[in-house]
């Protein structure tokens, strides 16, 4: 925190949040301003702290699965995927191929949903009101697929340790295929609305630059890292759940500014539909649940499994002491780590850019505070 007691006459310390709508939840940013220029920030987090890690240590392995959905509630399926993979690695089992394919489909749908929601709210922060309605309309179709598949729209609890609980419903493949065909023209529509729009360009170009080296120093992952030109995606780097079978590209950009992060995410949506098309074509038949004991009691040991969530690297570190509950549960959330770069990105910018930069980091406070 910049020391508030030694302010120049032109300097001012103000609070942004925790009830500010553009902080995407309950983030409080203390800004030290010189006129309209930001000379220092401090993030105050924890307003949405629910002690998820501690809850994990007091629940059995299966019982904790619904709680992970509530961390990053925009991308609940990805959270569940990471958790299930971690426990499966701890138990030394693998989900059957059919379950893996369905998991890939659902988590890619969830990636699109997360990016759509990000695009809508980010544009809303910048001042473009229209895209949010269109984005939520498209997201609704994804939520309908989720509801038909597992009975819940947001906090899905779609995956279980060892596989899936629910068999796909009739028309699951057809609906997913139809959604892919439907989405691509819509993404083009958003691009018409935003990509060349002069207000959008002048608000985003050159704002919040984070170079590749700085990204690595801060441990920033996900689209923010890829926008800085680093071709790093865990789906390619250490494939999980059968991602190595699918053919897709990792979109990158060069400048690492807010506009590049926008283009990277737009391209990621297109790449996700590519994965979806391939995955839907070849869902293998077979069982959906692996051989999991009724009482999950992993041997003594520890495991760290990370996946590429829509926002970056999501990792679970679980220590087992051969009981039904984990001894230690640690979550490495992408939003929390990405948020650390905020100070570096906004320093020297304007107050209006702070809103754009918080939006572009794509944080979810449920995940930051856990």
């Amino acid at each position, binding site marked *: 925190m910049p020391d508030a007691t030694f302010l120049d006459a032109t300097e001012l310390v103000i609070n942004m949040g925790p009830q500010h709508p553009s902080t995407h939840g309950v983030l409080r940013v203390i800004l030290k301003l010189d006129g309209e220029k930001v000379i220092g920030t401090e993030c105050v987090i924890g307003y949405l702290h629910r002690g998820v890690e501690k809850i994990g240590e007091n*629940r059995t392995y*299966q*019982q*904790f*699965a*619904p*709680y992970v959905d*509530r961390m990053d509630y925009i991308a609940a399926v990805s959270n569940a995927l990471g958790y299930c993979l971690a426990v499966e690695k701890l138990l030394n089992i693998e989900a059957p191929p059919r379950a893996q394919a369905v998991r890939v489909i659902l988590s890619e749908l969830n990636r699109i949903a997360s990016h759509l929601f990000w695009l809508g709210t980010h544009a809303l922060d910048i001042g473009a009101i*229209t895209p949010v309605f*269109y984005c939520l*309309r498209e997201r*609704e179709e994804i939520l*309908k697929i989720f*509801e*038909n*598949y*597992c*009975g*819940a729209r947001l*906090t899905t*609890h779609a995956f279980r340790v060892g596989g899936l*609980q*629910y068999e796909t*419903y009739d028309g699951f493949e057809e609906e997913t295929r139809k959604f892919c065909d439907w989405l691509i023209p819509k993404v083009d*529509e958003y691009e*018409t*609305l*935003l990509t*060349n*729009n*002069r207000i959008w360009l002048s608000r985003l170009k050159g704002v919040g630059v984070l170079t590749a080296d700085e990204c690595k120093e801060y441990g920033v992952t996900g689209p923010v890292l890829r926008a800085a030109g680093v071709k790093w995606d865990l789906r390619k780097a250490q494939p999980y759940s059968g991602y190595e079978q699918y053919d897709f590209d990792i979109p990158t950009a060069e400048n690492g500014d807010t506009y590049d992060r926008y283009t990277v995410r737009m391209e990621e949506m297109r790449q996700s539909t590519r994965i979806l098309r391939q995955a839907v074509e070849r869902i293998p038949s077979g069982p959906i649940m692996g051989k999991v004991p009724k009482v999950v009691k992993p041997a003594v040991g520890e495991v760290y499994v990370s996946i590429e969530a829509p926002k970056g690297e999501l990792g679970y570190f679980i220590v087992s002491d051969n009981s039904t509950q984990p001894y230690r549960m640690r979550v490495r959330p992408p939003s929390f780590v990405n948020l650390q770069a905020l100070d570096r990105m906004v320093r020297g910018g304007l107050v209006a850019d702070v809103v754009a930069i918080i939006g572009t980091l794509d944080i979810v406070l449920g995940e930051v505070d856990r």
Partner: protein
Amino acid sequence: MIRKFFKSVFLIDLFQGLWVTFRNQDPKRIYTEQYPADRPKVSERYRGAPRLNINPDNGETLCISCNLCALACPETLIVVTSERSEVTRRKELTTFIYDTSRCMFCGLCEDACPVDALELTQDFELASYTREGAIWDRQMLEEGPKPTQYRC
């Protein structure tokens, strides 16, 4: 260069965006649901209000008081009590309490039930005027919620 100049003078980028907005004004593209008037049709697998199923033939509960749902529940919000019947020597359900105010509708109780007695149904209107009203007893679980119907 000239093209770029032309584009920026005649605001081509903005008009392209406005054309997209204009096309979406089409009344055929209305997605809003008029909620109390048309009630949403939720999916078959929807996880909503819990229900304790009864045997339709004789009205007896299907629950065998095995307590597995209470053990599976992450929030431990289900309380099942039973007593051994003197006649049949079987466990008979006495009370079944389900606290919907703490429920997160994860469906683990439903998966745990060996006789499909406990089920999460498609009813989604669970509002209650009091906190006590959200704690459902056996009768409420068997009958299901009765949301207010509005004439529209």
